[in-house]
């Protein structure tokens, strides 16, 4: 599999949904496979809340491969022998694209908390500029899970003639009140860290890691299912030799401590806040008199909506809502409900029916 990691710089000004303007921006990208002569074999994969441009393959020294490695690669679900797969780190993120932790172009200072709010449609706008950069007129498919699925949906709405198929996985057309509430608790935990300094921690050379860690621990619980947690950890006590924290009793505690700490070391707190805000505000119907059906009527792409039975963060009712609205709108759309062991995170992992459905969707006539 040919892998190319590249930072693509755009000089144009980007008018954001919030009304603010980014004067030029960088997108960190990673591509897999090769773009064919007709440039019609391109697939865009959009990352979820904490993901990035590294979607597949294992870099030197890396313990774990990219976030969708189980599905992207030579001979895999999205077969990189036939498709050119593009992954980006979204703006506002913290893995190389322009965000709160990158120095501002003009002042060379970190923008930190002053980085403007970004939205799903802003991301899609930047991804469209990236498609232009690659000379891709029309994606064969745009796919993503969770917040990535929202981008796939937004693509089909924003650029109807530039995407043939959109796979909207473990996502919704807007998140629930409960999800907003959970995001707010996570933000509050971060903001109350003494090292947060109203978001200007970078200029003080500190990081609110304790807050980030606790926020991630909370988030992590919501990504898994109750049954998966029970199966995986049960009520087993943690081996004292591998305790992350002396106060830890159970394996599940140690696991969350470990995951939280790992995350806090690699993620930026302002990005966390921006990403969750983007998720909260996603609601494409708001530009169509709050009428999702009217909104979906603009779509020319074929949709595949996938929900997982064990997902309680984005339960199947949300997938069904998109599908039912798509039927009312009279657009091409299929809905499948899969068994997934991992709760919301199921979208990250291979399972046979999941893989077959995505492969068939990708192969079907557009």
């Amino acid at each position, binding site marked *: 599999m040919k892998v190319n990691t590249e930072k693509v710089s755009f000089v144009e000004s980007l008018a954001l949904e919030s009304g603010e303007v980014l004067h030029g921006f960088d997108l960190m990208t990673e591509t897999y496979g090769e773009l064919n002569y007709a440039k019609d074999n391109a697939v865009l994969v959009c990352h979820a809340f904490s993901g990035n441009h590294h979607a597949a393959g294992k870099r030197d020294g890396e313990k774990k491969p990219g976030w969708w490695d189980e599905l992207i690669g030579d001979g895999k679900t999205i077969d990189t022998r036939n498709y050119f797969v593009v992954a980006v780190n979204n703006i506002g993120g913290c893995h190389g694209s322009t965000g709160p932790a990158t120095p501002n172009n003009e002042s060379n200072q970190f923008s930190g908390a002053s980085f403007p709010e970004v939205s799903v449609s802003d991301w899609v706008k930047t991804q469209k500029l990236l498609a232009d950069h690659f000379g891709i007129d029309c994606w064969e498919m745009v796919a993503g899970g969770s917040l990535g699925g929202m981008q796939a949906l937004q693509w089909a709405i924003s650029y109807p003639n530039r995407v043939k198929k959109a796979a909207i996985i473990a996502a919704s057309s807007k998140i629930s009140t409960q999800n907003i509430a959970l995001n707010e608790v996570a933000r509050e935990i971060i903001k109350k860290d003494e090292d947060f300094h109203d978001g200007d921690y970078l200029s003080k050379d500190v990081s609110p890691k304790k807050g980030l860690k606790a926020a991630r621990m909370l988030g992590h619980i919501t990504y898994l299912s109750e049954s998966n947690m029970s199966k995986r950890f049960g009520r087993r006590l943690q081996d004292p030799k591998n305790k992350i924290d002396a106060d830890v009793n159970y394996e599940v505690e140690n696991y969350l401590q470990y995951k939280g700490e790992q995350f806090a070391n690699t993620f930026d707190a302002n990005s966390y806040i921006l990403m969750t805000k983007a998720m909260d505000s996603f609601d494409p119907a708001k530009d169509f008199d709050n009428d999702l059906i009217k909104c979906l009527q603009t779509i020319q792409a*074929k949709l*595949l909506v996938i929900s997982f039975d064990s997902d309680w963060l984005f339960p199947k009712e949300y997938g069904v809502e998109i*599908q*039912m609205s798509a*039927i*009312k709108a*009279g657009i*091409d*759309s*299929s*809905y*499948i*409900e899969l068994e997934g062991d991992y709760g919301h995170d199921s979208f990250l992992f291979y399972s046979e*029916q999941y893989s*077959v*459905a995505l492969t*068939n*969707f990708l*192969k*079907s*006539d557009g």
Partner: protein
Amino acid sequence: MDNTLKLIVLDWIPSQSKVIDFGCGDGALLKILSEQKSIIGYGVENDPDKINACIINGVSVIQQDIDAGIHNYKGMGFDVAVMASSIQCLRKPKDAMKNILKVANECVITLPNFGNWELRLGILNGKMPSSAQLPAKWYETKNLHLCTIADFEELCREESFAIKKNVYLNRKGKSTWLANKLPNLFAAQAVYLIG
């Protein structure tokens, strides 16, 4: 669905209509309808292999148990609902019929005729009968409510389901004189347009 049936349904369903096919199988009927009559079609199916066949056929499909879900499709602007060889598999066929007629203005129903002479002979032999239309063994069949043409049409009269068109097919899938003269005895399948 065999070819004669497909031709009949193709003839009955108006161009550019919005069609829902309950128990759509591999989506073959919806595919032909969209190619030849430019319909907007959706299939409802619960078997993963059949769903995948629909996706590969480029047919829009919704994964759902029909028993649980016909009423969900009310008010969605369907012109025609199709239920081919599925009505006898449902837990409550009468309620399903009522719901289908709320989903769409018209519905196409096909059903295997348990009154066919071949099946009657099977019963006379003291065994659960089988035929090309009803091939499964008694312990494997998905059919819960098999009926004869006479039974079904009696239900339609009782419930005021108006049969607008009907065709009776023999065991070979042909609409013969005999099958139409004495359908309850000689037809193996019946196709109805109900509205």
